């Protein structure tokens, strides 16, 4: 009697995903008007599947897709959860009965969004990051993780009467920065989490031209053919450093073209052998040859201040990789650039907590079908999937 006959319609509509509109380019130059057709995306509102176990994600800092189209993420775990309000079963003693505790740091999802692998944390013979950064999958399915150090602390909104606003004083007890040497390493594991290699050592940053030391590296990329690992080496270094992916031996390095990198935050390799580097707070994407020779650059949303606009980059899966997807964690969108010209062809997203919207979208990856995956840091704390139409 008290059921609504319209419910059927409501539920039928649930299956249709939101069409994420691609905005027109902000400046319609002749070059951008002649752009090739751009793919549209639908957010998949019901992906991935609920984690279960009372697990929640902390700030997600890295997303990658492997050769089997499995999706990998790394997140900051308990250190990024608010002890008093968020990590009720993850604190000692617990403050809640059924929820929530941090999921393991590294999660592997199959294409249906089911967790099929989980590991991470401190172990014998290596230094787990105080705060991870990017993640990349190597030649044999090896998993590389950068130790980026904690992100910038955001200025908070006004306090509330509901108790402390989530913030540093309410954070769960993570590794104390004063007692723990700062992140300065990249790590290589097997796909099941066996430690294989560490480059750099916590608390030992050396010089910006060091052949052994790193400083809060933000991201890694793997050149399977050459068996090399490219490191977006941040902190006081602000360079791209290249190492042998098996021995960890230093091979070469370079810094920003023109102006130095202000906040190097990603490194990605295209199939045709170019190195794409995110220079986040300069709102700049720079392209190099593998030997460090500068090729070209583009400013993306050049008026963006604050945290900057160029956080991470990934390529469309077509043979020519015609598009570059740039994650912009300040403007809360994914920019779609034509790779040839680096012109903005469109964007999707926006600020908010509902599906298809972002808070701190700092990671982007693409599968073999062209679906786009995003990771949100800060209080976004999500992995989202966007289906290519």
């Amino acid at each position, binding site marked *: 009697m008290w*059921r*609504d006959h319209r419910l059927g319609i*409501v539920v039928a509509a649930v299956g249709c995903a939101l069409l994420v509109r691609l905005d027109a380019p902000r400046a319609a130059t002749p070059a951008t008007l002649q752009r090739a057709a751009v793919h549209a995306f639908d957010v998949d509102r019901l992906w991935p599947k609920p984690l279960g176990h009372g697990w*929640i994600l902390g700030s997600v800092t890295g997303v990658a897709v492997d050769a089997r189209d499995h999706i990998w993420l790394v997140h900051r775990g308990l250190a990024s959860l608010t002890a008093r309000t968020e990590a009720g079963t993850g604190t000692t003693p617990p403050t*809640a009965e059924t929820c929530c505790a941090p999921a393991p740091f590294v999660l592997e999802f199959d294409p249906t969004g089911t967790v099929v692998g989980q590991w991470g944390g401190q172990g014998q013979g290596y230094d787990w990051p105080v705060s991870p950064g990017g993640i990349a999958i190597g030649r044999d399915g090896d998993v590389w993780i950068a130790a980026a150090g904690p992100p910038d602390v955001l200025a908070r909104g006004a306090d509330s009467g*509901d108790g402390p606003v989530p913030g540093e004083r309410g954070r769960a007890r993570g590794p104390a920065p004063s007692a723990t040497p700062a992140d300065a390493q990249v790590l290589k594991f097997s796909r099941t989490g066996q430690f294989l290699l560490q480059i750099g050592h916590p608390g030992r940053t050396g010089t910006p031209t060091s052949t052994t030391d790193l400083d809060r590296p933000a991201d890694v990329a793997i050149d399977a053919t050459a068996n090399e690992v490219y490191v977006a080496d941040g902190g006081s270094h602000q360079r791209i450093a290249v190492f042998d992916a098996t021995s960890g031996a230093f091979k070469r390095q370079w810094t920003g073209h023109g102006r130095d990198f202000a906040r190097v935050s990603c490194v990605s390799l295209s199939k045709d052998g170019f190195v794409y580097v995110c220079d986040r707070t300069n709102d700049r994407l720079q392209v190099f040859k593998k030997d460090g020779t500068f090729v070209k650059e583009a400013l993306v949303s050049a008026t963006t201040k604050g945290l900057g606009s160029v956080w991470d980059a990934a390529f469309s899966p077509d043979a020519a990789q015609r598009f570059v997807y740039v994650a912009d964690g300040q*403007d*809360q969108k994914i920019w779609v650039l034509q790779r040839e010209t680096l012109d903005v062809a469109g964007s999707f997203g926006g600020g908010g907590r509902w599906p298809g919207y972002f808070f701190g979208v700092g990671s982007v990856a693409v599968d073999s079908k062209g679906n786009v995956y995003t990771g949100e840091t800060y209080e976004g704390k999500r992995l989202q999937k966007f289906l290519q139409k």
Partner: protein
Amino acid sequence: MARHGISSRRDWAVGAGFALALTGLGLGHAWLARVAAAQPDGGLVQAPKFEVDPMFPKPLPNNWLMGMAIGVGIDAQDHIWIVHRPSTLSPAEAAADQNPPIGSCCSKAPPVLEFDEAGNLIGHWGGPGEGYEWPQSNHGIFIDYKGIVWIGGNGANDAHVLKFTQDGKFVAQYGHFGKNAGSNNFENFGRVAKIFVDPKENEAYIADGYGNKRVAVLDADTGRFKRYWGAYGHKPDDTNLGPYDPNAPPAQQFRNPVHCADLSVDDLVYVCDRVNDRVQVFKKDGTFVKEAFIAKRTLGDGSVFDLAFSKDPQQKYLYLADGMNERVYIMLRDSLEILSSFGDGGRQPGEFFAVHSIATDSHGNIFTTETYEGRRLQKFVFKGVQMVPRNQGVVWPK
């Protein structure tokens, strides 16, 4: 003053005796509820079934963002009203509002938002204005049977409630900012969490609150204080009780915050004693009837954030939002037994971070808002009374 309240010594003594007689019964209910909740997927139970609507609401216009969402109410047209705190948005999020702007996203939405049934934003207002004191930290929204919008506030100095028309025109203010004088005062409040208006008697029940430890009842037209009471119907006492201890005997006073005071069709007042992890039920005159403990080992913010009633004529079911364990309990209103629950922690549809407020529309659909960094309005579509698991987890559409 005495004529306004049930404050004679004799009345309090009678109330206390009644409370003691019923304490054992209340604990019995609590025990039953705990057993029911403890069965992990222990078979099926007949209870209302819900599915999250991941398409609801529609995107906000104007690049608007919501802060902590700390109230939801439904009006006679089944419009969904929420109140949130724009001031809790960080400069990095409200980047377009900075001077000069930091980025293109986003701007703070006005504090009061009205959605139609389809989830379209159709009204928005709120904030400081002439003739009233907008709360330092707004909290709780209720639309009464005359269509008046009531708003509370739990800022450190908020001691008042506000009434507006549905288009945001100021109607009345009861109590004054900065004037809190404790739980036995007849003029002001102590950081009000929620309001509920009884259409039969035209009385407003005030969950009072984050500073005071009482339910206060007012004439809904004049704001005149009529009566108030504390836990078990005792005279309220503002002594700090210290942290909640699940192993201690039940506290004889509410802990802050008194977070809801909602009236059922059969004239019972259901009070959320949030940090004490309990619901207490009273007659309209403040006589204690019964209580139930919910997830009793929950510390921190507590388990009993807000509640709402099912929309069958008898209001057979009670829906209780637990913002620490991140779920909604489906309870039998009469026995206060937990039949089932749905929800889990997380940022995806049907998951929660600090599910704070809950309301039902005329079709029986549930709406929730999340505070802290959850900051969402979500809709759960009523699918009828069915056999459901004891622990439903995240209720996605099939």
